């Protein structure tokens, strides 16, 4: 036993640490998703001068609606799991998984902190450290189309199929913009690994401005946010679902299958928020906080314990994630829906040229600064 451990020490420690990280990080994401379903209703209510859900109670304790996600889950589980007679049973069953799995898999690449020393073992606070993580992110978010399209097609319902077609067209289009907005970042920081990207954002411009993505690529940030909301299929780009009028791809779904689609949408909100924080707002970086503590531009320093630094960094990442999730909710409840031709026009006639122009300008500036030969 001990011999086996000694012989495979590295791989055992690595897999153990990975399992713990997956459990903790994904568990955190899942709980946050459940809270987000409540937050969406609460935020929208507050924006519309309402109170929002506050009646689900356990032993008379309502806690301002905190039990509503549980009540929703119980309701979803107890609903009839209906499969239309003409539906393709296999694909109809698989589609929710296709929607949920790529989104969950994406969290593996997101660094939620720098590193922690645990009993002399350096624990990277990222589930999978992949050098080309940015491309994995784009590839996996491209896979999310399958969930939409298979779900709509396998239902054998014309309205669902139309919704799926709208969804496929929209997601393929905005995928392009999403990818192109990130090219500028890769050019500036010279890396496609998310952890490297975040570390590079810890540098200072002119000695006092943090070199966050939003500072060096402000146009790309706005384009990324628009394209990411469109990828996410949320209002103002929710023609894929259009639950109130034009009926979406999951109209034949009920019970937990429907819940899987809804859940994947909420997970995507967190994902977009985390990506926005990681790529453009310095991820876990706190301005002027380094391994040893705060070093302000004036030269003042404040030494901090390693664990406090790590906690501050993870906390910073969480705050950014929560902020962007909230921001996406506010956007969703503020803007009316686009028409489909407007949606396509916005993507191909406005966002795509702007994204290409952004790359061109970035390249020209880098060339002028002599950063590339």
């Amino acid at each position, binding site marked *: 036993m001990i011999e086996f451990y000694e012989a495979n020490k590295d791989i055992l420690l690595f897999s153990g640490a990975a399992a713990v990280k997956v459990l903790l990080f994904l568990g955190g994401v899942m709980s946050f998703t459940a809270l987000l379903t409540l937050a969406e209703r609460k935020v929208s209510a*507050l*924006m519309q*001068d309402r*109170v929002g859900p506050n009646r689900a109670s356990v032993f008379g304790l309502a806690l301002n609606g905190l039990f509503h996600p549980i009540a929703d889950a119980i309701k979803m589980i107890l609903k009839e799991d209906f499969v239309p007679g003409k539906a393709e049973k296999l694909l109809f069953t698989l589609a929710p998984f296709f929607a949920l799995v790529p989104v969950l898999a994406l969290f593996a690449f997101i660094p939620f902190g720098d590193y922690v020393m645990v009993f002399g073992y350096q624990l990277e606070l990222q589930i999978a450290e992949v050098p080309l993580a940015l491309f994995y992110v784009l590839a996996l978010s491209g896979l999310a189309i399958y969930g939409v399209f298979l779900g709509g097609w396998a239902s054998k319902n014309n309205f669902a199929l139309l919704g799926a077609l709208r969804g496929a067209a929209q997601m393929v289009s905005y995928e392009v913009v999403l990818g192109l907005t990130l090219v500028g970042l890769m050019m500036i920081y010279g890396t496609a690994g998310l952890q490297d990207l975040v570390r590079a954002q810890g540098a200072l411009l002119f000695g006092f401005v943090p070199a966050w993505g939003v500072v060096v690529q402000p146009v790309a940030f706005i384009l990324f946010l628009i394209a990411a909301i469109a990828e996410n299929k949320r209002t103002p780009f929710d023609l894929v679902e259009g639950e109130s009028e034009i009926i979406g791809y999951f109209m034949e779904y009920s019970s937990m299958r429907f819940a899987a689609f809804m859940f994947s949408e909420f997970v995507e909100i967190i994902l977009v928020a985390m990506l926005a924080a990681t790529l453009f707002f310095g991820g876990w970086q706190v301005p002027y906080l380094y391994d040893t503590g705060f070093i302000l531009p004036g030269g003042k320093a404040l030494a901090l314990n390693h664990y406090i630094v790590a906690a501050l960094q993870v906390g910073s990442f969480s705050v950014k994630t929560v902020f962007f999730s909230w921001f996406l909710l506010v956007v969703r409840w*503020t803007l009316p829906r686009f028409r489909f031709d407007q949606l396509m026009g916005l993507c191909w006639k406005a966002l795509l040229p702007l994204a290409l122009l952004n790359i061109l300008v970035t390249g020209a500036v880098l060339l002028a600064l002599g950063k590339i030969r």
Partner: protein
Amino acid sequence: MISVKKVNNRPLNFLERIYLPEIARGLAVTMRHFFVNLFNPGGMPTVQYPEQTRPLPGNANLRTRHRLKVRADGSPKCVACFMCQTACPAYCIHIEAAEYAENSVEKYPAVFDIDLSRCVMCGMCVEACPEDAIAMDTREIPGGALHRGEMLMNKEGLLRNLPGEPSTLGASNRLANEYLEGKK
């Protein structure tokens, strides 16, 4: 005469056409509402009904739950004429008439049910009543029950006077009272 409002749709200027400044303006509005309501929840107009109620304005008090007025001797003012049941557009009143054994002048309702789950609170029954026997001025708002049976009001639940109310007014009451007094 139909009034026509001419909308002056001017062409959007550049800042409006690129949409982003207008989005920021819209977000400012919704975020202001969000934060104002977040830090001052008491300022919202919502009332936690049915635990909380608030006083009804003006004549809305005359569209509250029904009651049947009671005479001084405890008998219902209602003479079971079926006028309210006929006037009711929602068919929520059910009356079964009966006669007083000792009083051949008028009838009384042996059964008087109002199904509040069907009632539309229109007040037609009050207007139709020739005896001023039914009123909708209890200031109680019906609604919110877990079972349909709880929404069904019978005669016992309906019969009551408001505090300090004179109970012997009304044209046919005079007849009935004279009769009853003569009998005494």
